C-alpha cells in the first residue's frame, strides 16, 4: 500500500504541484474505473427497452430469483473460507520463513514464484491435480485405495467448492505471507527478543508480542484477499459447479444472455459485488488503522 508514514516535506510541499503530478492518474482512474461504475449503476436502473423508466426493478428481480441469493451465499462462503484458511496458513508460513534453516532461500523463492503465476494457469493445474481422473486420484489408485475414478472424492465442480478454495489458498497464502514478512522486517526482532529474555515461551511471545504487531498488516492483506476471492471470475468458472454459480460467474452469464431485458439484472449484480467488496475492505482498513494507532 502507499506510504503509510507521513513523508517528509518534499522539495515544494505545495498542493498545487502535487495535484499537477497526480492529475493524469486521477483522470484516467476516474474515467475508466469511476465511469465503469457509474455506467453500471445507470444500466442497472435504466432498462434498454423502449419506453422504460428508471426503476429498481432489476434489484427486485434478482432478489426474487432463487439464483441470486444462492450465488451470493456461495461466493461469500468461498471468499470467507478461503480468506480465513489462507490467513492462518500464511501466518504460520511467515513465522517459518523468519527462522534460519537449510533450504530457506529456495523456499522463499518458490513462494514468490507462485505469486507471478496467473490464476488461469493455477486453476487448470488444480483441475488436472484434483479431478476424479486427475493425478491424485491416479496416485490413490496406485496405492490400491480405489478402482474407478468415481470413487475419488469430488473436489472440483463440487457444491463445497473445495477445489476453488484450495486454489485460492495456493495463490493467496504466498501473498499474505510476503506482506507479513515485510511487516515483520519493519518491526525487527527487538520486541520478540526482549520478551524471550524476560522468560516468555515461543507461543507466549507469538501470541502477546508478534501477533498484535502484525495484526494490522494481516487484516489489510486478508481484506484484499477476501475482495479478490469474492469477485474473481475465471477460478469458479473453471473449478465451480454449474449451480450454484459463483456471483461473478452468474453476473457474466446473465449479461451475455440473448434476452436483453435481463441486462439490468446483470448490472445490479455487478453493483452488489462492487458495493460489498468496497464496504468490507473499508471496514478492514479502518480497523487496521485503529489497531495501528494503538500499537
Amino acid at each position: 500500500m502507499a506510504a503509510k508514514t507521513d513523508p517528509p516535506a518534499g522539495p515544494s510541499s505545495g498542493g498545487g504541484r502535487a495535484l499537477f503530478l497526480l492529475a493524469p492518474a486521477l483522470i484516467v482512474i476516474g474515467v475508466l474505473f469511476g465511469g465503469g461504475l457509474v455506467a453500471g449503476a445507470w444500466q442497472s436502473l435504466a432498462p434498454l427497452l423502449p419506453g422504460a423508466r428508471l426503476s429498481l426493478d432489476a434489484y427486485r428481480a434478482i432478489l426474487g430469483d432463487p439464483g441470486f441469493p444462492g450465488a451470493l451465499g456461495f461466493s461469500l462462503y468461498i471468499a470467507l473460507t478461503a480468506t480465513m484458511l489462507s490467513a492462518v496458513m500464511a501466518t504460520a508460513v511467515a513465522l517459518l520463513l523468519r527462522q534460519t534453516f537449510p533450504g530457506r532461500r529456495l523456499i522463499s523463492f518458490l513462494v514468490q514464484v507462485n505469486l507471478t503465476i496467473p490464476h488461469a494457469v493455477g486453476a487448470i493445474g488444480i483441475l488436472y491435480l484434483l479431478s476424479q481422473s486427475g493425478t491424485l486420484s491416479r496416485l490413490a489408485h496406485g496405492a490400491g485405495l480405489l478402482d474407478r475414478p468415481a470413487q475419488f472424492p469430488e473436489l472440483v465442480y463440487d457444491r463445497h467448492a473445495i477445489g476453488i478454495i484450495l486454489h485460492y489458498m495456493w495463490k493467496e497464502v504466498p501473498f499474505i505471507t510476503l506482506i507479513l514478512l515485510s511487516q515483520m522486517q519493519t518491526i525487527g526482532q527487538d520486541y520478540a527478543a526482549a520478551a524471550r529474555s524476560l522468560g516468555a515461551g515461543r507461543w507466549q511471545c507469538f501470541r502477546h508480542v508478534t501477533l498484535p504487531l502484525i495484526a494490522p498488516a494481516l487484516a489489510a492483506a486478508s481484506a484484499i484477499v477476501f475482495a479478490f476471492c469474492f469477485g474473481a471470475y475465471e477460478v469458479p468458472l473453471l473449478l465451480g459447479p454449474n449451480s450454484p454459480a459463483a456471483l461473478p460467474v452468474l453476473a457474466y452469464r446473465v449479461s451475455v444472455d440473448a434476452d436483453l431485458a435481463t441486462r439490468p439484472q446483470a448490472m445490479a449484480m455487478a453493483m452488489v459485488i462492487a458495493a460489498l467488496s468496497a464496504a468490507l475492505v473499508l471496514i478492514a482498513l479502518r480497523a487496521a488503522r485503529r489497531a495501528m494507532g494503538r500499537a
Partner: protein
Amino acid sequence: MAPPPGLRAFWVISGICLALLMILPLVPLAVWSVADGWRFPAILPQVWSADAWRYTLSPASGVLASLWSTTLIALSATALSALIGIPAGRALGLHRFRGKAAVELVILAPLVVPAIAVALGLHAVFLRLGLTGTTIGVVLVHLIPALPYMTLVMAAVFANHDTAYEDQARSLGAGRLAIFRLVTLPAVLPGILAGAAFTFLVSWSQYALTLLIGSGKVVTLPLLLFSFASSGRNDIAGAIGVIYVLPGIILLALTLGRINGRNVALPRGGLT
C-alpha cells in the same frame, strides 16, 4: 538462543512440504504438455510425445500470434501506467497536501473493487465508442488494475527517496532536466524497473477483462488456454500453460535482488 534440534528438523520438514505444495499444481500441467494419451489410472503418460509442443508452436494453433498480442497489450499497458503512474507516485511519496487520504483511496479503489463489476458496466460504453473487440479497448481496460498498481509501487519507492541530493544538485546550479537525468532517475530506476515488471504481469494475467472487452476477438494467451482446456486438449493446454508462466518467473529472477522488504512491490499474477 539456538533452537532445539527437534524444532529445527520440524522447520526443515515443513519447508520441504511447503516447497512441494507450491509446485504441485504445476506438475500435471507440465507433464501433460509432453504426453500423448495419458488415461486413468496411469500415473505417468503411457506415451511421451512432443506433438503438443510442435502443434502449439506451429502457426495453425494461433499460440504465437496470441503470445505476440498478449505481449503487446501488456507492454502498452505498462508503458502508459509508467508514464502516468511515476509522477503520481512521486506526488504521493514525497508531498504532503490536503485531501491526500482521499486521493490515496481513489487510487487504491480499483485494486479492491473486483474488476469484473466495473468492466460489465464499461462494456456498453466501450461498445458505443467502438472500442470493444479492439486491442486499444483491451489496453485501456487493463489500465484499471495496472495503473493503480504502478502508482502505489512508485509511491513506496519515492517515500524512501531522499530529495537532499536533488537539493544539493540544484544549489550547485544544475537545471531541472539535469537533476532528473543525473540524480533522480539513477536513484529510483531500480524501483521503476521492478514496478514495471510487476505491472506487466498484472496485465499479462488478466482473463475476465480481456474476455469482456475483447469480445473474443482479442485472443490473449489465457483465452486460448481456457479454450483448449475446456475442449479437453489437456496436452496443448499444458504447453500453453508452460509458455504463459515463463515471463513471470524470468521477471522475478531478474528483479529479485532489487527489491527490499520495505517496497512492497509484490508481483501479483492475476490478483486484482
